[in-house]
């Protein structure tokens, strides 16, 4: 849903439709919503969607946390899985592939500790949290 082909003879009405959708980040909104539904499989999908959207709306206004599948505690658990021995560091390639596994495509490719190939838990969690917040803020900011 993210790759609309930009054909030379694209229908003008279709263009403004895709512009509208992309400006308001509708594809990302439905992507996150679907992921939540797949994971939770609520008995009342419509009610669940309403709750999700209301939480998103409140978060947009007040800075309360966005609805998200991956929570902060999940990030620390992920780090512990990557560092079972407890060194306190992961390699850059682990960092990069975990970012992608979490669905984050744009991330800091030069985090602190890259030169020593030792990314700390703090660096990882902060960067992941920041990027996930961006992905979950599926609305248009003026």
């Amino acid at each position, binding site marked *: 849903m993210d790759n609309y082909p930009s054909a030379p003879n694209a229908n003008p009405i279709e263009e403004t*439709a895709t512009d*509208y*959708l992309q400006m*308001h980040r*509708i594809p990302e*909104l*439905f992507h996150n919503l*679907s992921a939540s*539904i*797949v994971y939770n*499989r609520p008995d009342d*999908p*419509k009610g669940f*969607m*309403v709750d999700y*959207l*209301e939480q*998103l*709306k409140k978060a*947009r206004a007040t800075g309360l946390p966005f609805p998200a599948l991956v929570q902060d505690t999940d990030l620390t658990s992920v780090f512990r*899985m*990557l560092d079972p021995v407890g060194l306190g560091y992961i390699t850059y390639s*682990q960092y990069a*592939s*975990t970012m*992608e*596994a979490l669905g984050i495509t744009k991330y800091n490719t030069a985090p602190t500790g890259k030169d020593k190939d030792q990314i700390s838990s703090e660096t990882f969690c902060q960067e992941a949290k920041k990027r996930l917040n961006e992905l979950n803020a599926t*609305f248009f900011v003026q």
Partner: protein
Amino acid sequence: MDQTLRPLNIPPEFLLYAEKNALFELFQRCISSLLIDRPSDPITYLIDLLKKDSDAPKIIILGPPASGRHTIAKMLQKKLNAVLIEPEELLRDVPSKLRDKLPVNATVNNISSSLWTQIYEERLKDFDCSRRGWILVDFPMNREQTLALQAKGICPRHVVCLEAPDTVMIERAAGKRIDSKTKDIYHITWNIPNSRDVQERLIQLEENSEKIMVLRLKEYRRNIGGIKDCFKSILRSVNADQPLNDVYLQVYTYTSKKPRSIAPRTPRIVILGPTGSGRKTVAMQVSRKYDIPIVSIPTLIKQQIVNKTPAGVSMKSYVTREALVPDSLLMPIIKDRLNQKDCIAKGWIMIGFPRTREQGESLARIPGLAPSRVFFLDIPLDIAVERLTQRRLDPITGDRFHTHEHPPPTHNIKERSRQHPTDDKEVVQKRYQAYTIYYDELQDYYSEQDGIHIAADQDTYTVFEAVEAGIVNPLNKNGF
């Protein structure tokens, strides 16, 4: 072992969940509403939309004068408890902000399309319309109004067009009477009012005289083509030249059906039938056309036996005795096969299973894998026998023939062609009987789930088309 590299699979239970809750259609409705209205705050808009979203009916009824559309609309309104909107009534209750825009002597015919659309839009936004649904009669009256409605995003789910020849309409109009007090519609031949009081109040309207009817019909015929063109996929024509109740029944059946969904579905098809009914033939045709893998249970069993797997070894004794392999051995094998990637992604066509009601129940119990279509290929014993006993195989080239339909071309080939031992008449009869024993209980079990019966004694293409229609058309009221 890097945990992040394990592939992610969506569980098959989810596909069933999505189908059951009509998630695809829900998302489709949300996004199309967003694109029609383009709100500046989609999140609030979506919250409202989801709260209001309902299966309330949205019906338009069209037809030539005197076709009974108002009568049908009223009957439908009573049954569905929707809001019935007629143009004359609507005109009388136009809200004040639009009233100023009306021309001086506003009648149904001299209002511009854009104004009409605004009036309808306002009315349809009312709470009772969005909750109970709406039925429009006599509107839109021409193509321009139709396009204006659609541009505003007012889209019915069902459009019914009553049809009948002009002469029938003129004749009917001649007998039409209106109760001057209640405005109810009666007819001196088909719908006489019961009470004497009402009978005395009846009057004949000028608009039903033959001269005026001819003009009205001309006007209708001029416009209806353009309107029908706009509603192509949701339009259903109903013959109005039948008794009222028949017309009503047809209209009601149509409006109760959900439109065919374009949601991606993985077809889970079971084809049942006695030996000689052409199951494998039909399965292969469907599989080839729609790229769906065939899961043949007898083949699966044979594979297990040949590969001498532990399950295969236990099953061998049952197979040699020609007894049914018990569920405890069979179900895990079937479950594994159906959970493989190609079946999950593309669906499956199953033949040779279930044979008994119990097996049917076990199949339905596998999470996420209950069949979505069950076909019974029905064929009488003698035709099955005829089909199979005339099969011949040429052992040298491997060509297959049928002595009646598709005979071997030369004498030499005919001489050397053999019959497969299982195609011997008595063997065929025995195999057929084996199916019939359990036929009744299977049919009973699947009749609750809308099993589809197809006459299999026709040529392969006809049977294939019938099966295809069964797969593609929505099975039940829920649209899938």
